């Protein structure tokens, strides 16, 4: 149960494929050896099958997750004095992460049938639009 909970707390950061190890812990209730195999299989599949662009997106998401986690840690350890600033920074990370995840989902060929009308170019334009809005709000909020 405990690892599951841990996973739920770091939910926004545990979404990308790069955090597959976290998933393995939830599976580890079964056979440990089996789980290791599964993780290894997933990892190999990921390395082999994922296009380079999507991997780039995954790296970016991992980076955002780390930055967000660092900010959160700072907030807990040092304090949240300019609360506006903390919130703006943190939500910039979360927002950008979410938008990148959306871009990843939309451009993923596996989801083709879900997004018939959305071409990758369209998805990227949406992404830029969303990011503009996000950063406008953040800059306005940061004081």
């Amino acid at each position, binding site marked *: 149960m405990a690892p599951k909970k841990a996973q739920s707390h770091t939910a926004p950061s545990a979404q990308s494929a790069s955090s597959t190890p976290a998933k393995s812990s939830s599976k580890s209730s079964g056979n440990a050896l089996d789980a290791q195999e599964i993780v290894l299989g997933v990892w190999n599949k990921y390395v082999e099958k994922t296009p380079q662009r999507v991997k780039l997106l995954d790296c970016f998401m991992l980076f955002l997750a780390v930055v967000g986690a660092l900010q959160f840690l700072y907030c807990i350890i040092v304090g949240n004095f300019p609360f506006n600033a903390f919130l703006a920074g943190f939500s910039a990370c979360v927002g950008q992460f979410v938008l990148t995840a*959306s871009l990843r989902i939309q451009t993923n060929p596996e989801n083709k049938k879900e997004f018939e009308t959305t071409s990758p170019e369209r998805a990227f334009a949406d992404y830029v639009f*969303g990011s503009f809005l996000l950063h406008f709000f953040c800059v*306005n909020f940061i004081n």
Partner: protein
Amino acid sequence: MAAPASDTLLQQFTGRKTRGVLRFVILGLIAGAAVSSRLFSVIRFESIIHEFDPWFNFRATKYLVQNGFYSFWDWFDDRTWHPLGRVTGGTLYPGLMVTSGVIYHALRALTLPVDIRNICVLLAPGFSGLTAFATYLLTSEMVASPSAGLLAAAFMGITPGYISRSVAGSYDNEAIAIFLLVFTFFLWIKAVKNGSMFWGALTALFYGYMVSAWGGYVFITNLLPLHAFVLICMGRYSPRLYVSYTSWYALGTLASMQIPFVGFLPIRSSEHMSSLGVFGLIQIVGFVEYVRVQLPNKQFQTLLRALVFVIFVVAFGGLVVLTVSGTIAPWSGRFYSLWDTAYAKIHIPIIASVSEHQPTAWPAFFFDLSMMIWLFPAGVYMCFRSLTDEQVFIVIYSVLASYFAGVMVRLMLTLTPIVCVASAMAFSQILDTYLDAKIPEQGAKENGSSDPAKVAAAVLPDGLRSTRNPLVGIYSYASRLTVIGASTVYLMLFVLHCTWVTSNAYSSPSVVLASRLPDGSQHIIDDYREAYYWLRQNTPDNAKVMSWWDYGYQIGGMADRPTLVDNNTWNNTHIATVGKAMSSREEVSYPIMRQHEVDYVLVVFGGLLGYSGDDINKFLWMVRIAEGIWPEEVKERNFFTQRGEYRVDEEATPTMKNSLMYKMSYYNYNSLFPAGQATDRVRGVRLPAEGPQLSTIEEAFTSENWIIRIYKVKEPDNFGRDHQSATAFDKGHKKKRASKRKGPRVLRVE
């Protein structure tokens, strides 16, 4: 069979343009009808701001237009809440004022010098046209049939439930908020359908606008997550949902925090926690779903369910713990009163005292929605038959809004859009079915069932079960004409009802009253403005006026004088102070008024005219609110007679008779009538033969029909006497001292 099909197809191709134009024209006409049906008040009375809150919005808009945006944002208003002042810029929803400010400047730029008052008066009708359009868009997303959208727009345009808050002159937040509400929902549906970041971001943008315009934005904040949550629970999670929800939440929350009045609420208060929770949930679901695709495994389905359940419990528990420990602000009083209708009455009299916070009486539903109230369930049922993602939204919305509308009168407003949408869906289904002049041929099995099947377009597993009906004989012209005729009659009645309600019930400015003379002609009673202009012209610029809080905004707006309390009601203690001053004896009230530097006291008295919304009828609320703060000094029980009656006549209790409010209301009232004949026409009772005496205040002004009475608070006596003895002296009740003095005088003469 093939030939006719291609024929209709061709027809549709050629007819598309005409249909588009027609649709456009119809929508324009609907908007025109929506605007013009809201102009009754301008025609009957004049272009004037209505009621109470709009006066504040109007005043704030004037300030914005005169001083510019930045000083509006930092506005500290020292003319309200007298000794305290109010940080107005940080405690209002600026959307409405900014909107009309923008319109004002845009028209200026187009060299159309329109008075700001006219913009404010006509803003609500203008936006109602847009609301009709937004309803069309929303409904068109729900069903394929375009006639449903047009019907919904027409319903929305003229339904009294919405007109009640958007007649010309009712310059309130709801004027633009309902448009924003419907439009945000439309964008949300669009986002969910397409799974597009663009639409999600637009939803967030309009959500932000909505947050800046009306406190009712919390409805959206909770409805969208609920929709997402229900979809997830139904096993309808899709990447589209992830994209739309997360882009809406991430951007929308940031957008809402830009408003100073909202500030950190979205991460602090319980009302916003559901959206945050669903945001976290959807991340986890998205992740798990991603892994599941990578690793097809049957165990995963069960694991997913378990995970969702566990996380829901953990998040809910965490929420409870955080609320109890005080990190997250507990639910505000208004929301408690949503769950427990008796809550406000017991704990917060100030919320309960507002008439629009009362539970709805059932005739109000028929009054405001007319025939739609019975079409509404039919539409919701149709949504159940073909439960697509967006129709789930309708079901959730209608269930929630019906409940809230039943709890609080003013929330009828949030129910109205969905009622219009659902009933338009039902009605257009009837029309589409019976207006289709084609008589199905032998092989028309598909043809006949295609109509319901159209509704069940996004075919679900059980979609066809109920629609596979055998052909029944409703294809004769007679039966069709009957149904169509009946529906036309219903539509006509609906229009008649709406117009009647609008012109009779919702078009009164309540600042100006109208009555009918015996010969049927209209008589305008303009006491409010008479009194406010008296204040404006005869009192010093910073004379403080004390009145019950209902009239605070009007005094600020029309008389331009500082007030002690107003309709903002943010400081309960201050209001209770005024309540105490009104409900206590003069000796108690006078120090309170001196401490607050009150110069004038204003009361509303309807006894002469039979105007029931006066202060004596509101008096018990003043007593209750004051009792909430000073239970020792003000006791509601003392205002009732032994038998528990609230009386103002001979048998009124001494506390009642000595209260400042009673005295101010009935002071000198006797002089209007022959001796002993004074009657109060609201309460319908004969008053005591001897009227009340005032010593610490003096009558300054009484309006034509005695609706408004203004009293001046006396300065402390020049000789240091208390006012009672000073008055007594002036009246000649000086017997004791006089007799002592008369003695020597008599001697000297002799």
